[in-house]
């Protein structure tokens, strides 16, 4: 991280150990909604060293509840980075070889502009005055960040889930800036079922009286229970029935028999409550609304007349699409649609489906098959790009 410091220009500040870039100062970022946003900030982390030719940069795009702390201790929770099994010295994304960037998405709550940040116009937190952002807006903001850091083009963009959506958007919006793209456990558009799950989460937040029409920061309240319920519902979708059964079955939580009440009798209930309550310590409820909305709005084919292949026409990017057998949130079928579109665009594409019973979250976990495949893909791509070992 320290090595990267020398290449950063002006407008830098360190907040909670993260780098923060002030962007859109001369010219505002025009959002998909038509709103002009600027100036705004993007908080990010870097790992490793940018080579002299500036050709070894890998951008990691995080998922809905992730952030820029991909391979370093989280400043709020104190936990290791969320993808340390993948990113680090000697790992698949080898920080001794590649310069790794991970930025908190626009609308996030870890230092990038979003509903928790202060609106320069009013001097108060944005709350719901923050404009609705899309996956394309997030990617456009990241592109400005790269300009700011001084990276002309990326060796690779990689991410899972919403991170994978950003990868696809990157490849479609900036084909000349992406040498290799690895969209994992994602889709080119959010399905009706996924929008439905998100709506349940948003309604849980908005039904919490402490939400105060989104203005809870001014009132000094916090819709913790609403956000916790949203997280609990969503968390189920990240797992699989097999994984839940293996982990918990119908086991009881610290008791011999059921209590004929509504305590967390079952271990699975206790687990979900824990997931909910720890999540609210590190995540903002309004951010959750904005980011889920960005995912719902994602439909890459829509801006290309409904033909997904057109989003990739003429692309020279090398793709490696990855899905997991037990992922029912972003099933293999949806990755296959992306692959079909890439084939129709005569793109250079690899596609692997990985056998796992861990559900959608498999991409975050220790999956040796995934590591082996991505190592090979990156190695091959690095060779084609002429990167030194």
């Amino acid at each position, binding site marked *: 991280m320290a090595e990267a410091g020398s290449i950063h220009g002006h407008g830098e500040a360190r907040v909670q150990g993260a780098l923060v870039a002030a962007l859109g100062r001369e010219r505002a970022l025009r959002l998909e909604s038509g709103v002009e946003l600027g100036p705004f900030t993007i908080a990010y982390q870097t790992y490793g060293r940018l080579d002299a030719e500036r050709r070894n940069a890998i951008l990691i795009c995080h998922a809905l509840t992730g952030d820029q702390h991909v391979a370093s201790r989280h400043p709020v929770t104190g936990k290791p980075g969320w993808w340390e099994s993948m990113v680090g010295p000697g790992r698949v994304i080898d920080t001794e070889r590649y310069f790794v960037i991970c930025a908190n998405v626009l609308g996030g709550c870890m230092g990038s502009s979003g509903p928790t940040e202060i609106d320069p116009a009013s001097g108060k937190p944005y709350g719901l005055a923050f404009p609705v952002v899309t996956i394309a807006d997030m990617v456009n903001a990241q592109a400005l960040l790269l300009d700011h850091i001084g990276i002309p083009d990326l060796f690779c963009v990689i991410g899972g889930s919403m991170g994978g959506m950003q990868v696809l958007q990157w490849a479609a919006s900036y084909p000349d800036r992406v040498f290799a793209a690895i969209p994992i456990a994602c889709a080119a558009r959010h399905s009706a079922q996924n929008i439905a799950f998100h709506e349940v989460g948003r309604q849980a937040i908005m039904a919490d009286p402490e939400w105060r029409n989104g203005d809870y920061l001014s009132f000094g309240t916090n819709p913790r229970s609403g956000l916790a319920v949203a997280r609990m519902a969503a968390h189920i979708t990240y797992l699989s029935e097999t994984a839940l059964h293996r982990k918990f079955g119908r086991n009881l939580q610290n008791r011999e028999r059921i209590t004929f009440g509504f305590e967390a009798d079952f271990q699975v209930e206790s687990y979900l409550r824990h997931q909910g309550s720890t999540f609210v310590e590190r995540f903002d409820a309004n951010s959750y609304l904005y980011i889920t909305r960005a995912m719902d709005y994602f439909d890459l084919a829509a801006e290309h007349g409904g033909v997904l292949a057109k989003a990739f026409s003429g692309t020279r990017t090398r793709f490696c699409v990855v899905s997991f057998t037990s992922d029912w949130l972003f099933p293999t079928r949806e990755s296959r649609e992306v692959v079909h579109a890439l*084939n129709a665009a*005569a793109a*250079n*594409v*690899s*596609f*692997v489906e990985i056998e796992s019973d861990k559900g959608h979250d498999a991409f975050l976990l220790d999956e040796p098959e995934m590591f082996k*495949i991505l190592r090979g*893909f990156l190695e091959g791509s690095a*060779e084609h790009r002429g990167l030194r070992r």
Partner: protein
Amino acid sequence: MNEGPGANQRGIRIDLLSIADMVEPRSRVLDVGCGDGALLDYLARFKQVDGRGLEISQAGVNACVAQGLSVIQGDADADLKDYPANAFDYVILSQTLQATRRPRQVLTDLLRIGRRAIVSFPNFGYWRVRLDLLLGGRMPMTGTLDQPWYETPNIHLCTIEDFLDLSRDLGIAIERRIAIDGKGRSRQGGRPLDNLLAEQALFLLRKNG
């Protein structure tokens, strides 16, 4: 892809080597049924081709991608239709045509996607095959047809003459042909006894006109 006759000193099977010899350096190649990627890897190393693969088994695909090859899971019957016309200089279908559901459609697709197609298949007119059936009265098994009738994926076996008939029907021109005998020796095809002596046949095809 069947395992077929043994690998040669350059590390790949003799029939794959004959295929590789038909491919111009630095061309764009799609290998349909690429198996473990041996041919694609060879073509990338020695002919600098821009290669892609299609493979039905996920394990095969994963192994290919792990060695840096661009391969997707799919099969000739279902997935060729996605590719645009003339996307490749060569589309290769090695020892797979006889296992497709609609060989006629597959051949048409190969020459739509590629400017040329390279197709190899076991020759059902091979004398050992004929003899097995004639004298043994049972489904033939040879080096290239090495599985019993109840295990084999081959559902559309043909002889060289059958293949030539279909090519004529489809307006396909044959640029080169190679006959590979039971000992794995390949020679220029097109001789009168090929249909009897060749265990495998290999064709370089293009559209007429």
